[in-house]
């Protein structure tokens, strides 16, 4: 044992309390504190730093095990009712419940936390729906007729301005009196007949074909007025049910209008020969066919008094007087 002094006494005090000293060494330490009374209090305070072993220092090892146990049982119970567990985990959970009756009650309460769907009806469901009703002919006749009118006005203006500025041409249009037609036969028909005066002039300077082409101004519109009736028949037939919805009209009409206008522009601003063709109205006819699913023919005609040009589409009639 080292010689105890005021510089190393702590080490020996600690050894004394930890029982590492022999009896002789203990006597030396006790003699030292007798002679150094000021260290007595410190000597006895060392007894407090010695830790007593805990009575139960065992760890709950079950917490470290995989699978359900006391501490994590709630998660497994929820997993069981949610269907999140594997077959093995389900089996282990049932084993745990079997071993502890109180857990069965606990699981039953968890099972009650599942909400039972209640039948609730949304009262305004009808208002949410989008109508799929058939649009009457009137609804698409108006935009289609407007397209025709636009085309005719456009073509007349362009023709007059760029190619044949004379309004005389309008006097050569024939007006087909639709009042004399039967409902089945009723149609819109316009036809341009060659200007006799021009024809005579042309005959002297070109072929008949050239004269005819250069004299044609437009073509007749031939749209059966019985479309609504026929549509009804088609609607009743499931095989040929047409869909005249607002959606179709909204999607199709502007496209038709745009194409008609575009082609009319191209044609009218083209060469005189191209201008004589009926492409714009043919295209319009195709547009109308696309909307109505009816074969449509377009021609142009003049009025009986030779002072009006116009056309009729279904129940709509359009005309303009000479010189307007």
């Amino acid at each position, binding site marked *: 044992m080292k010689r105890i002094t005021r510089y190393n006494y702590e080490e020996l005090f600690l050894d004394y309390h930890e029982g590492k000293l022999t009896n002789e060494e203990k006597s030396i330490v006790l003699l030292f504190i007798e002679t150094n009374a000021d260290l007595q209090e410190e000597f006895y305070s060392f007894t407090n730093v010695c830790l007593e072993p805990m009575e139960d220092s065992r760890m709950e090892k079950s917490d470290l095990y995989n699978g359900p146990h006391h501490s994590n049982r*709630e*998660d497994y119970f*929820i997993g069981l*009712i*949610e269907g*999140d567990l594997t077959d093995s985990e389900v089996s282990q959970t049932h084993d745990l419940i079997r071993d502890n009756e109180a857990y069965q009650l*606990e699981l039953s*309460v*968890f099972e*009650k*936390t*599942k*909400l*039972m*769907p*209640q*039948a*609730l*009806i*949304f*009262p*305004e*469901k009808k*208002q*949410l*729906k*989008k109508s*799929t009703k058939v649009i009457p002919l009137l609804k698409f006749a108006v935009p289609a007729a407007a397209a025709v009118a636009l085309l005719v006005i456009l073509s007349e203006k362009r023709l007059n301005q760029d190619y044949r500025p004379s309004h005389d041409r309008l006097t050569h249009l024939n007006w087909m009196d639709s009042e004399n037609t039967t409902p089945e036969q009723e149609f819109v028909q316009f036809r341009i007949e060659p200007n006799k005066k021009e024809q005579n002039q042309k005959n002297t300077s070109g072929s008949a074909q050239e004269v005819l082409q250069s004299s044609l101004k437009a073509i007749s519109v031939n749209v059966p007025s019985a479309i609504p009736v026929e549509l009804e028949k088609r609607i009743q037939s499931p095989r040929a049910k047409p869909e005249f*919805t607002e*959606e179709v009209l909204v999607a199709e009409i502007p496209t038709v209008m745009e194409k008609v206008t575009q082609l009319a522009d191209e044609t009218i601003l083209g060469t005189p020969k191209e201008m004589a063709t009926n492409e714009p109205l043919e295209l319009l006819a195709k547009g109308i066919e696309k909307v109505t699913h009816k074969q449509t023919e377009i021609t142009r005609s003049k009025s009986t008094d030779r002072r009006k040009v116009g056309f009729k589409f279904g129940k709509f009639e359009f005309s303009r007087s000479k010189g307007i």
Partner: protein
Amino acid sequence: MTRAEYNTAVDLYADNLYRFILKNIQDVDKSKDIVQDTFLKVWNRHGEIASEKAKSYLFSTGYRTMIDLIRKEKKQARMEESDLLGHVTTDQYSDLQSVLLAALDQLPEAQKAVVLLRDYEGYNYSEIGEITGLTESQVKVYIYRARKFLQKYIGNMEVLI
């Protein structure tokens, strides 16, 4: 999604969506408004939505609309210093479902929504995640927390009853 498919979605899901919203906010008029608003939004984009995704799209749109409304109303309530949130009810619980629904109202919004989607609509964690914008793990955690809360609530109420 065509018009016909949209109308089918109305038939199939309007009631479910209404129930989901109503159970969340407990207000008939506002629930109706949210459902109508949701379907309007879906119709406006029906051309971009695949019909098989209609239900999921409806619920996610409805959920977002509802959350926006809740946040807006909470903000208003704070501004008005309303004490309604602290209102104590004295409802008497007649049966388990009533107890459960009362407990449901005690849950945080997100937990309530995921439990309703899970139990009423039968969505899996992933689908609920898509609708609510939560991760699958978050959804699972919320459902587990909600179940524990409901279990304790029911347990306590059963003792009282």
